[in-house]
């Protein structure tokens, strides 16, 4: 998914749709923003009015009026506080709701996609969308109400200022364009710079992870200095990028302070002169000072929102690119349940390719009678693993048909089909969960005894019971690390726990050492009884388990028979099994 096309309009549509869904909460946030703004604007006006009407009087202070003003002040403060709190609450509620909804949609959408999508998309890509991009959208959403308030505040404060003194107000506006330009420019420069810092930190993490993971090699080859140099390069880069951010802040940060100060200075000098002339009262002068801040300060917020809005749109477009993906394997409208039967498999003139024009299977035909087993043998890239992936319909074929018990897999309900085909992959994926739950993954209703029975059969029980927490040990990426062979034994136990009609073992014992494999083989023999089994393996002993061996080459069945028969009759079979001694 490199060089992806970003449709900003579609991103905007996604944002609007999500916001519309939260309209109640969003409207409440905007209403609260209005209340908050009114209170904020009123406070300086009341301060000014208090000074002029109750304090700075020729005849001294008017105590009664002063008390009323003080009470009004308390009321406005309460309104301001209430408004702020309500605005924040509903803004956060809206934004986190949007965040959770998008994440859920994203997750659901990925769950529904087919294997071809996972083949072309890295997990990291999906994660960065589900975390960084969703976060960007949330950040924009949460800013909407306060920026609405900022807009009102800027307009409102200008109107109030204009009422007090039009020319003075216009003078205050002078710095406006400058602040706007600087703000937008600053944030547009700042974001890429901080993104570079983040990227550098990510790189450093990889360097450290890799260094620790490969620690033995580094020591073995005495390459510590080389590693240190590698880390230093990244650390220096982080330093440089951080200093670039510092430079931006050094240039722009003080400007955000200086420009309002110029505005204030104007008010102080010109306003002070006006006050001397009698055109402005002392109260108005004080009010002016505070209102001017409210005129200028929102610009910074708006500038930040413009920059953040651009990023959020890009992020939304990136999310949309995943949401719009359609699964290539879809359940047909009138799909049927699994037919009665014991797992007869038939591949009929199947043609399939992962990439257009490069067929992996061409005219592949094979019939496996119910309850029997077949081993697929063939050189690398002959298409044998593909056969295993097509049976549970992870991909759809181009020509021909694949039938289980006489029904085309495309006419079956997808979930039911897959629940009836057990699969053990070459590299076993374990979830960060207990060993028990990983084994019971295939069958959520399995009892404790059933889980242990399966583990025993797969010769997993012996090592599980030796680990301190036994079946409760958490494994997976964050948990206890198991060896490849141990993982495979768990996967075999997982497949044994569920009585599926068809069982596929795709190089399922490749990481188990030879002695252990011999023991597991007995277990496999038990499990295979009465089930249709497809075995893919390089090990002669495992191949010999099957009733029938099929030699696959270049996407076709080229020979078939028992292991012993093929050994004597097929030179290609001998060659594939490595019997022609390359050492000779």
């Amino acid at each position, binding site marked *: 998914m490199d060089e992806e096309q970003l449709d900003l309009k579609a991103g905007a549509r996604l944002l609007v749709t999500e916001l519309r869904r939260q309209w109640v909460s969003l409207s409440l946030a905007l209403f609260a923003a209005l209340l908050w703004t009114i209170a904020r604007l009123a406070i300086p006006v009341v*301060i000014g009015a208090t*000074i002029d009407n109750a304090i700075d009087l020729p005849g001294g202070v008017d*105590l009664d009026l*002063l008390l009323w003003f*003080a009470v009004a*002040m*308390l009321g*406005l*403060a*309460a309104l301001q506080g209430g408004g702020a*709190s309500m605005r924040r*609450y509903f803004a*956060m509620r809206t934004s*986190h709701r949007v965040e*959770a909804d998008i*994440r859920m949609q994203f*997750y659901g959408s990925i769950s529904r996609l087919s294997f071809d999508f996972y083949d072309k998309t*890295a997990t990291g890509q999906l994660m960065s969308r*589900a*975390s960084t991009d969703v976060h960007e959208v949330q950040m924009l959403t949460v800013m909407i109400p306060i920026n609405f308030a900022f807009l009102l505040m800027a307009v409102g404060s200008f109107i109030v200022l204009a009422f007090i003194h039009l020319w003075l107000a216009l003078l205050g506006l002078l710095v406006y364009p400058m602040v706007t330009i600087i703000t937008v420019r600053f944030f547009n420069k700042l974001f890429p710079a901080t993104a570079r810092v983040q990227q550098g930190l990510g790189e*450093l993490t*990889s360097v*450290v*992870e890799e260094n*620790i*993971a490969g620690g*033995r*090699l580094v*020591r*073995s080859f*005495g*390459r*510590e200095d080389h*590693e240190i140099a590698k880390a230093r390069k990244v650390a220096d880069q982080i330093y440089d990028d*951080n*200093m670039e951010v*510092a430079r931006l*802040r050094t240039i722009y940060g003080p400007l955000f302070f*200086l420009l309002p100060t110029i505005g204030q*200075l104007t008010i*102080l000098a010109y306003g002070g002169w006006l*006050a*001397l002339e009698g055109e402005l009262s002392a109260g108005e002068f004080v009010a002016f*000072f505070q209102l001017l801040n409210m005129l200028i300060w929102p610009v910074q917020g708006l500038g930040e929102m413009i920059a953040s809005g651009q990023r959020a749109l890009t992020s939304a477009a990136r999310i949309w690119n995943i949401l719009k993906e359609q699964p290539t394997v879809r359940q047909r409208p009138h799909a049927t349940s699994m037919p009665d039967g014991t797992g007869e498999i038939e591949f009929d003139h199947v043609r399939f390719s992962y990439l257009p024009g490069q067929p992996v299977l061409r005219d592949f035909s094979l019939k496996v009678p119910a309850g029997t087993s077949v081993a697929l043998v063939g050189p*690398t890239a002959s298409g044998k693993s593909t056969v295993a992936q097509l049976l549970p319909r992870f991909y759809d074929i181009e020509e021909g048909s694949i039938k289980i018990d006489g029904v085309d897999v495309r006419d079956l309900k997808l979930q*039911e089909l*897959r*629940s009836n085909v057990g699969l053990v992959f070459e590299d076993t*994926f374990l979830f960060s969960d207990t060993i028990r739950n990983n084994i019971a993954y*295939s069958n*959520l209703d399995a009892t404790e005894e059933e889980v242990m029975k399966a583990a025993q059969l797969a010769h997993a029980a012996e090592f599980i019971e030796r680990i301190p927490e036994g079946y409760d040990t958490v494994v997976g990426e964050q948990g206890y690390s198991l*060896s*490849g062979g141990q993982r495979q034994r768990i996967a075999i136990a997982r497949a044994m726990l569920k009585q599926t009609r068809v069982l596929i073992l795709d190089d399922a014992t490749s*990481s188990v050492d030879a002695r252990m494999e*011999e023991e597991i083989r007995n277990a496999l023999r038990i499990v295979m009884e009465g089930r249709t089994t497809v075995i893919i393996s*390089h090990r*002669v*002993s495992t191949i010999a388990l099957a009733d029938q061996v099929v030699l696959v080459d270049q996407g076709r069945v080229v020979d078939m028979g028992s292991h012993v028969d093929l050994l004597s009759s097929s030179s290609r079979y001998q060659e594939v*099994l*490595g019997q022609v001694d390359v050492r000779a």
Partner: protein
Amino acid sequence: MMWRGTGGMAEQRQNGTGPEIETTHVIRPLLGLLRPLWLMSGVAIVSISIFALANLGRPIVIQRAIDDGIIEGNADAIVMASIWFFILGIIIYIVQAISTYVVTWVGQQVLRTLRMRLFSHYQRLSMSFFDKENSGRLVARMTADMNALSDVLNSGFLMIVQALFLLIGAIILLFLLSWQLTLISLIILPPLVIATMIFRVYSERAYDAVRDRIADVMIHMQENFAGMRVVQAFAREHHNEQQFDRINERNYEANLRTVRISSMYIPFIEWLGGAGIAIILYFGAGAVFGIDVSVGTIAAFVFYLNFIFQPIQQLSQVYDMIQSGFSALKKIFGLLEIEPDVKEAQSPAPLSLPVQGRIDLDEVTFGYAPELPVLEDVNVKIASGQRLVLVGPTGAGKSTLAKLMMRFYDPGVGSVLLDGQDLRKLSFKDLRRSVIMVPQEGFLFSGTIRENIMFGRPDATEEEMIQACRSLGVNPFIEALPEGYDTAVSYRGSRLSAGEKQVVSISRAFLANPPVLILDEATSSMDPGTEAIVESAIRTATEGRTSIVIAHRLSTAEHAERILVVNDGRIVEDGSHAELVNAGNYYTSLYDRWIQHDRKPG
């Protein structure tokens, strides 16, 4: 036995994070880091304090403008005030720029030094340390802890100095303006401080919950995206979607909880601010309690209120930041204090050249935990140029033997000798030039295949590298990869198969051309073509030098000069294939089984 396996077991025994160290022990090394930067640190503190003072001066200027200028009708006072206001503005502008830059500079210098010190320390530590420690935790020292420290250095430090100056300065100035009005106004201070403290406690708890919940969300997504094929193969999409829905909603709820807490705090604080203004207006002008201050003073009081509210809220924020910064520093310095178990000799003995490659294990007893010996009283003499194969069941101690020869560990009793010299007396440089190991899983560093092979001898030329691959017979194999020697690989997401990784790994060691080569065969089965290439590469690589191969296939043992059978930490059989096959012991039974099931007649 796999490398990871041992690591895992050891980790269970001792789940340590390094020694806990006292807070006072953090101060000293921290000051040590800052000492070379004392000038800039000083500049930072001075500029921040000037910043605070200049800010505090502004309300005074406005007060003068109002009282002496507007109320008294004095134009000169307004001009003076404007000039002062301008000067203060310029000062603030300058010191703000200086402090922003200098504070970041000091912080980044410290961080860079600390990052490199930690990384270099990781290079010095022994393998025994990495067996005990969870690697995730070691990475976290470099990421999460450094970030916590970075927050303190970049903004925490600045905020504290600034907030303290502003708060203390504002209160002093208020007292000078009118101590009576100040005393009354400060009524709002206790509720402000108490409310802020209570809020901190609750919101910190709520934010902790958010951190946990969002981590749940990320872990679940990461795992399901990576394992979606398995999820679909077991038809678990719906079940997992429901599960994610719950996790996702819990995260939403945790987020809302933080908002609810601040929804109670914020209106109170804002109202308190309004109450402060009301108090100033009423008591300041009201002549109640005999207080009667000027209009300008009232205005100044209103402005100064901000200098009290903001710093208190800031200080409470910084408090948590400082705490996590300190605990991060404790962990980092704690780690830096750990000494490697396997240390290089102070004055290493010279190794006479050329290295013969004679290895002797002399009455070696060793266990990862001293009370659980993995090897007991092992005596082996490996002649120069001998090709030795280690055979034995999983967990017998074969890999441990190899690790002792690499000096990843030192034996508890006895000694390991190279050309008659105890490994403990040799320099790391000599040792590592002489003994090189090819690990089982064929570890690849991020980079190209070329870079990975050159890792063995960085000063090798392109021709030498290709020549090495050619003599191993793996050249066509590598060239068949999508981009040949330029194929990008990474230690994680590499698409290379186990066999392909092994090929690169062997080439890397072969290029380094060590007198002694230790090779841990891959256990996983490969397709026959690759397996043949790997086997022939191993044969070539071990030719003409001392080699120790940990065999997982008996086809490897079949052709060895000498086989050692290791069982239960002891050498139980020693001899050639022909001798052992007929001895009727462990090796014989192993071989018979293999002949029956797996052997490919040749």
